[in-house]
């Protein structure tokens, strides 16, 4: 069981009703962690269209995370 801080942006923040939360999880990767958070908060965007960062660095969904990490979940982007 690892404890991390999950941070949500844009529609994820609105759907979760909060910008960040402390999460405890047995997930092995940030992809698994995202799946847990998505179920809990009703995130509907498919993972392939979203992005994840650990401590301000974009990473692949298969990346493991460590106790105390800051994990950022980004819904589909729309700059410009």
């Amino acid at each position, binding site marked *: 069981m690892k404890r991390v801080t999950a941070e949500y*942006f*844009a*529609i994820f923040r*609105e*759907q*979760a*009703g909060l910008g960040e939360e402390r999460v405890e999880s047995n997930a092995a990767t940030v992809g698994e962690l995202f799946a847990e958070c998505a179920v809990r*908060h*009703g995130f*509907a*965007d*498919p993972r392939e*269209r979203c*992005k994840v*960062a650990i401590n*301000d660095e*974009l990473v692949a969904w298969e990346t493991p995370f460590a106790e105390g990490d800051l994990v*950022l979940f*980004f*819904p*589909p*982007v*729309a*700059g*410009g």
Partner: protein
Amino acid sequence: MHCRIDHEPLESDALRSAMIDRRAGGFVAFEGWVRDHNEGREVVALHYEVHERLAIKEGERVLTEALARFEILDAVCHHRSGDLALTEMAVWVGVTSRHRAAAFEACRYIIDEIKARLPIWKKEFYRDGDSGWVNCVGCAQGHAHHAHASRDGQSRG
């Protein structure tokens, strides 16, 4: 070369003048403006949310790629954050080169990558009072509806 996130209106004249270079024969600029329609809906305003540190980092990665890939002299990108009115500039990309073809190609590459890769989200506010995050599914519906509505006074329906 730099990428910046701006909280005040972008001034294309100042941005352009900062790129003047005696070696440059061509300058290409792209500006993204807030337009009054999107996908058949009448838009009255936009809100951009930006993760600034990562947006700048990824934006400068895009510019570095463009400088390596095309025969250009310099490339700069500015993107707005916050609330924007119709016709306001959301993004500015400027590229200088000795010969024009490279500036066109690099500018196009940069704006395409900026839009696809930077952690920037766009919320549209519609004439009918509705709103929605562009490219996202099931905006602010279901159980999150109330949290959303209480946060910014807008809801999808």
